[in-house]
């Protein structure tokens, strides 16, 4: 599974904030923090406002703030949709 990676897309209401490949995504949903790795089951979750951390394949970590939105996972495609989102 290690060669697999996630395709991440982070969009806010008026623009696409970031998209690319990642090894892991950590986000904060209303139920608590959730870590997503490749092969995760399809999921739709509501985000609570907070930080979204994206670990790139090289190991680098990018941090985004996301507010008021949701997160969907399917076939290793992670879409984080937030009304306000920005790179921290």
């Amino acid at each position, binding site marked *: 599974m290690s060669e697999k990676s996630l395709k991440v*897309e982070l*969009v806010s209401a*008026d623009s*696409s904030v970031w998209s690319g490949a990642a090894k892991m995504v950590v986000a904060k949903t209303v139920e608590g923090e*959730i870590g997503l790795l490749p092969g995760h089951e*399809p999921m*739709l979750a509501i985000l609570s406002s907070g930080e979204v951390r994206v670990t790139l394949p090289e190991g680098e970590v990018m941090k985004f703030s996301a507010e*008021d939105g949701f997160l969907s996972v399917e076939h290793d495609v992670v*879409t984080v949709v937030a*009304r306000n989102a920005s790179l921290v």
Partner: protein
Amino acid sequence: MGAQLRVYRQKIKSAQTTKKITRAMELISASRIYKAQQRVAASTPYSRAVTRAVSAVATYSNIDHPLTTEPESIDRAAIVIFTSDRGLAGAFSSNVLKETEQLSTLLRSQGKDVVYYLVGRKSVGYFNFRRRTARKQWIGGTDLPAFETAKAIADAVVADFGTDFKDGGVDEIHLVYSRFVSMISQVPEVVRLLPLEVVEGVEPPSKSEVFPLYEFEPDVNKVLDALLPVYIESRIFNAMLQSAASEHAARQKAMKSATDNAQKLILNYTRLSNQARQSEITQQISEIVGGADALSTSGDED
């Protein structure tokens, strides 16, 4: 200078001033269309993602959410009208208003009561002039829509949708806005927003595509509760952006033809003024010649 000539010169000058203004407005609109189009494009990923998610939830859950279920009887319908704040955009606002009137007639013939929500100063003016009332109105910023306005509109309509008919609630919500097709074509469009018809999204998922079985967190109802307002906001925001792009395109077209007309007027008046000048000169010459003639003949008689 003769009176006729002076009048023509005045007219030429006024046409030139008008032309300068319309030309400037044309150029401004032209530059703004591009920006407005970019904003439409920039908001597309968001609305696509939201539409996809809503479609997915709607496909895989059989729950009856108040926003998606068709009420047994629709007694009152709301129409949200998107027009511009400013005029000088050709038939932009009146096309939308005409479409609204048609829709109102249709809804009334179905025995529904119609209430209005207005966006843009032009629609407010239209309603005030006819002494008609509107539920709510939003003025300002139609040429550069902000997401906050879309959210305010969405909150207002969803709140009224959730209210009972007896307390002034509505059972159906329509949007009337101008869809940006191309630089030269903008079509007024009617969309029924609520109850939801998820099928017609910005980009409907293809038929062959099968949605995966989603896990919902915390649960389906909560996810749908959170998603639907977002979906409605995004639809309204998209309508506003489309309308803004259409407004600029319509204004550019209107101002272009105004500039052309001013140019035509200037040309015509220049011809007429040249003619007037020439006839003035001719008249003066013939007066001089006639005068000299009269003098010489009177001299002969002496």
